């Protein structure tokens, strides 16, 4: 009877462990920059939620991966398709990753393959192969070369232009 109880308790632990041991949550916010003049008459650029957005507006996405579990999360990769009706702004992808190494790569083929900008090529209809431009990127991907400890979080960010 005692042994049986022990076994079932073990089983419970095994089943439950993926749920609470390492759970990353992801938040995604969209902001725009507005210029305001402060009391000293200086222009300050403020970020506000991206609610008032018209074509030509630059939108800043910030994605936060938060480790709410009690074990570290490894091999963390955040992928983000460039939203429909927007184009990626070259050089805007960044990571707050605590000074540690993040590999930022892009896709020009709908997310099938990822590479750094110097290696991204596109074949035009006439067969010529050229370097892809930033507005042709379909996906952005951040791969972290470190584990996110329990209770820690990383922010990644990129900007797009609304067509």
């Amino acid at each position, binding site marked *: 009877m005692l042994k049986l109880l022990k076994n079932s308790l073990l089983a419970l632990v095994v089943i439950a462990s993926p749920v609470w041991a390492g759970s990353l949550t992801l938040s995604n916010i969209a902001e725009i920059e507005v210029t305001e003049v402060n009391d000293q008459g200086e222009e300050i650029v403020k970020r506000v939620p991206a609610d008032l*957005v*018209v074509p*030509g507006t630059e*939108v800043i996405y910030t994605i936060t991966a938060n480790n709410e579990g009690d074990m570290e999360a490894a091999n963390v990769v955040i*992928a983000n398709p460039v939203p429909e009706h927007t184009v990626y702004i070259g050089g805007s992808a960044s990571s707050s990753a605590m000074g540690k190494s993040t590999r930022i790569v892009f896709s020009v083929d709908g997310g099938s393959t990822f590479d750094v900008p110097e290696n991204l090529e596109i*074949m035009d209809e006439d067969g010529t192969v050229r370097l892809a431009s930033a507005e042709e990127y379909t996906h952005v991907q951040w791969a972290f070369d470190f584990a996110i400890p329990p209770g820690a979080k990383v922010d990644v960010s990129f900007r797009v232009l609304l067509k």
Partner: protein
Amino acid sequence: MSFKLNKNLARWVAAGFFATAGQMAFAASTETPADTDITNTATVSYSVSGVAQPDETGTRVFKVDNKVDLTVTGGTTNVVANATDQVITFTVTNTGNETQGYALDIEANGGDDFDANNVRIYVEDGTTPGFQIGEDTLYTAGSGVNIGDLDPFSGTGGDAINVYVVSDIPTSGGGTAPTDGQTAEYNLLATTLVAGSTTVQGQTAGADTFNAVDVVFADETGGSAGPHSSDAVEDGQASATGTYLVASAQLSVTKTSAVISDPVNGATNPKAIPGATVRYTITVSNAGGASASATGVTLVDSIPTNTTYTANTITLDAAAQTDIDDSGVPVDNSDFNVTNAGAVTVVIGTVAAGASNVVTFDVTID
């Protein structure tokens, strides 16, 4: 550099091709329509203790707002005094991301030289491109009436419409008769209306309404307002100046004569005695400062009394002309005593600004 050829390439290339073809076929706006949801979804993959965990996603949606933007362009029309129904063509274009209506108003620009009479506005009705007075729609300036909705995404020219300002140029002889190079200028103002209505389009005041379509005036952003006195930047209005430029020819005619021979002295120091041959030289000039070519120029010169025309002596710019009326025959449209009795007639045609044409003919003194 390495190029990864994969099955997605074909799809990518094909998609690129169709996008190009689409741009060639349509001039429609490529802006994102108002009320479009922009959805961003990030996905994170990770592992814990070497075990891959289910992907997590984070999604953010916002709505594209209504960017009210428009342009008005105006042209210049060359006119002459006393001309009626002279047309300046303006174009109103919806460059925003939502279908809108438009109302029109017009004012005389302060910096010009004269005013035209009977200034009217017509809106292209689409039956026949270009202005037709009996066909296009007369519009009452300042009435607030919607000239018709313009859809920036229609792609078939439906995003723009021609507006014609039609006026009469003052008559010469009046106190306001315009002279060469003077202008009459008119500022056409287009005001954005809510589509399908005569309600002036307003802008969303205060904070944005989340997940609703707000309105932002984006006309003349970062530039200067148009010329109309009611136009300001980012006000849902745009304006342009159209110009009537008085452009006329300034023709002058000079006539000289020289005795080229007489029956006694021949060609050496000939005198104007009976039987002497006299050559008339007539120069028709359009002044270099004229702003238009003279067209349909015809010179008629009666043979002086007591002289007799010498047959086959008409020249135009040193080219011999015939005496018969051969209008319709290329080059030679001169005659003597046919088009006009007892006179030399030379059809010169067009005299450009700064150009001259020279006609000569000979007579003998009776």
